[in-house]
């Protein structure tokens, strides 16, 4: 079978699976799977840029996704009244001061001759800087967090909450992630040996720790709910006589029609983003740039000798891939309508995305996209399948037998198990993924 035919077939199969969900369960479920599948595909695309094209192993996807989520809050939420005047400027001043301290330290380091005198000066500067920073920062934070802590207690955002403008959060999420990735890459890729994996693993945890504990930023674990969204609210549609009428025209009740309409709107927006990113990735890949990346992947030493700045290229692709994850993260948060830092778990946001990339086919953009859809579908649908399986297995057992109860209860744990099995099977029998790199 020709590979193009095979690939089309694979996509068709996943499409059919989603369609089947539509017929067998509900179109809402199917569309939701589609939407999350689109987001997953974008995440997988970002990771594929890093791993597939440059062999960079990013185990901190969760962190970048979370930063995207933060962007959604900071652009979408209205500014908290009085927060800036209460302490926001203090916080900002603290950061500016911290930055100045760092600059000053760097300058001193450059100007003074090495020796204990320099070390002492630098250490003194850093200690003093830290205390002044805390002196500026702490009261600011306290003041901001004191403003109606149960409901706000944070600075709020830019308040971009009208219609499609909300989607502005997505590129901003990309920017946030890119900035973080730049810092991480600069450090980890700059180390004499490459320690990117552990660095990303750690930084992701730190990002989540900051999101959880810095309440002034995005309410910490108290969560931000009611984020604005680019699609209309179902309720508004249901109350809109025009909509109800046209829904009736299609023979649908307003509730179903509105939920489907909103999900379709999201699906449309997400598809546009995915297609844009996919086209950009494909174009980049099939260009001298892609050739250069392949050369670097093949042989770093030779590429370096041929005038290619390997570290800079690695940094570039790491930043780009992370930015794509950030975009996906922002999209996901707008879809959820809330930022809940506690929900960011490595298993779900880092390792699952890895499974998507590997299963789909690393090094192939379409493979990553396919993996995104397929694995998300399984992630959601394995549970009912597992339950069904367990019921089948236990059907012969007496009701109320502890084993039966145990088995049925364990169905939920089948999900991770299944993901593991899928990953291992693919690695074994189709090691380069379902749609391998050409």
């Amino acid at each position, binding site marked *: 079978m020709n590979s193009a035919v095979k690939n089309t077939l694979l996509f068709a199969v996943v499409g059919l699976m989603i369609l089947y969900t539509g017929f067998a369960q509900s179109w809402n479920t199917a569309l939701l799977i589609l939407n999350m599948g689109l987001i997953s595909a974008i995440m997988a695309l970002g990771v594929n840029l890093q*791993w*597939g094209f*440059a*062999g*960079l*192993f990013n185990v901190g996807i969760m962190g970048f996704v979370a930063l995207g989520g933060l962007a959604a809050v900071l652009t979408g939420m209205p500014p908290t009244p009085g927060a800036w005047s209460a302490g926001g400027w203090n916080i900002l001043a603290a950061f500016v001061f911290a930055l100045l301290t760092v600059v000053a330290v760097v300058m001193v380091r450059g100007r003074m001759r090495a020796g204990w005198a320099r070390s002492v000066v630098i250490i003194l500067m850093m200690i003093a800087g830290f205390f002044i920073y805390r002196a500026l920062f702490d009261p600011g934070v306290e003041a901001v967090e004191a403003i109606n802590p149960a409901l706000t207690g944070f600075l709020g955002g830019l308040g971009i909450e009208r219609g499609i403008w909300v989607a502005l959060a997505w590129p901003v999420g990309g920017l946030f992630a890119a900035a973080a990735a730049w810092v991480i890459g600069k450090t980890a890729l700059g180390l004499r*040996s*490459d*320690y*990117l*994996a*552990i*660095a990303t693993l750690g930084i992701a945890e730190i990002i989540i720790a900051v999101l959880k504990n810095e309440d002034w930023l995005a309410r910490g674990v108290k969560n931000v709910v009611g984020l604005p969204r680019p699609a209309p609210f179902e309720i508004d549609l249901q109350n809109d006589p025009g909509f109800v009428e046209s829904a009736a025209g299609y023979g649908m009740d307003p509730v179903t029609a509105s939920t489907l309409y909103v999900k379709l709107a999201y699906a449309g927006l997400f598809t546009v983003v995915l297609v844009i990113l996919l086209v950009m990735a494909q174009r980049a890949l099939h260009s001298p740039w892609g050739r250069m990346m392949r050369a*670097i*992947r*093949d042989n*770093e030493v030779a590429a370096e000798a041929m005038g290619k700045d390997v570290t800079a290229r690695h940094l570039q692709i790491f930043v780009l891939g992370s930015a794509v994850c950030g975009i996906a993260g922002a999209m996901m948060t707008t879809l959820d309508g809330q930022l809940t830092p506690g929900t960011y778990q490595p298993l779900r946001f880092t390792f699952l995305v890895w499974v998507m990339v590997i299963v789909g086919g*690393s*090094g192939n953009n379409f493979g990553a996209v396919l993996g995104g859809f397929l694995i998300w579908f399984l992630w959601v649908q394995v549970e009912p399948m597992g339950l069904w399986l367990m019921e089948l297995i236990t059907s012969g057992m007496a009701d109320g037998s502890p084993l039966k109860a145990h088995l049925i209860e364990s169905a939920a744990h089948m999900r991770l198990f299944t993901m593991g099995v899928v990953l291992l099977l693919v690695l074994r029998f189709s*090691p*380069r993924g379902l749609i*391998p*790199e*050409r």
Partner: protein
Amino acid sequence: MSDKPYDDRGNKDLSLGNARGMGTAHPVRQGGRSRPSPGGPFLIGENMTGGYGAGPDILHDCTIAVDRGEIAVIVGPNGAGKSTGMKAVFGMLNLRKGHVKLDGEDITDLSPQARVARGMGFVPQTSNIFTSMTVEENLEMGAFIRTDDIRPTMEQIYDLFPILREKRNQAAGELSGGQRQQVAVGRALMTRPKVLMLDEPTAGVSPIVMDELFDRIIEVARTGIPILMVEQNARQALEIADKGYVLVQGRNAYTGTGKELLADPDVRKSFLGG
């Protein structure tokens, strides 16, 4: 790298893994048996055809042999498959065709460990010592399959290479090139091999040490151990060789006694630099 399914895509991340010291051999699987096959030279790799893993064939119908009391030398351009041939004789890669026979037994299906137990010793061309272990531990590892007392052999080796006695507790990786080479040969001798295979033992060794090494090799040969050796210092090597093979692209190009090859104008012109 779409040819290799389990490739690392250029990943060099040290927090994930470390490929240094990783095996490259696709050795003959354990559990094979030898069959009697009397006659022929003491050690012979006959009509060997094969390559690394699923890759292309490197050896094409190549034959190399050494008999008791002989030094056989293999020469040829870089990449000709000399080292590959040696590895094939040692069972470090799966042959698609051909046989390896040792002392009247067909050992083609034996794993490398089993061949060591049968009395074959091998010093590979590169990374031929355990760099993180001391000199003494390197020698001990050479005697890994032995169950008898290894002290006397070790003393013999120290007598042969006195510098090693001095450095016995030093990590082998800290030695100079020539000393490493001595450790490598010593390690192979620790098995008390019945036949010794050396892959470019003098590479990266100063001429003085090289001469020394050659002398030692001749000494070893005099104790009755046949030696099969690859050498880039072709002229010197062929001078001491009883038998010479010239390999080109995995094939036997010329075969003869050392003298004959040295005298052959074609060989001189193409491989010995005129």
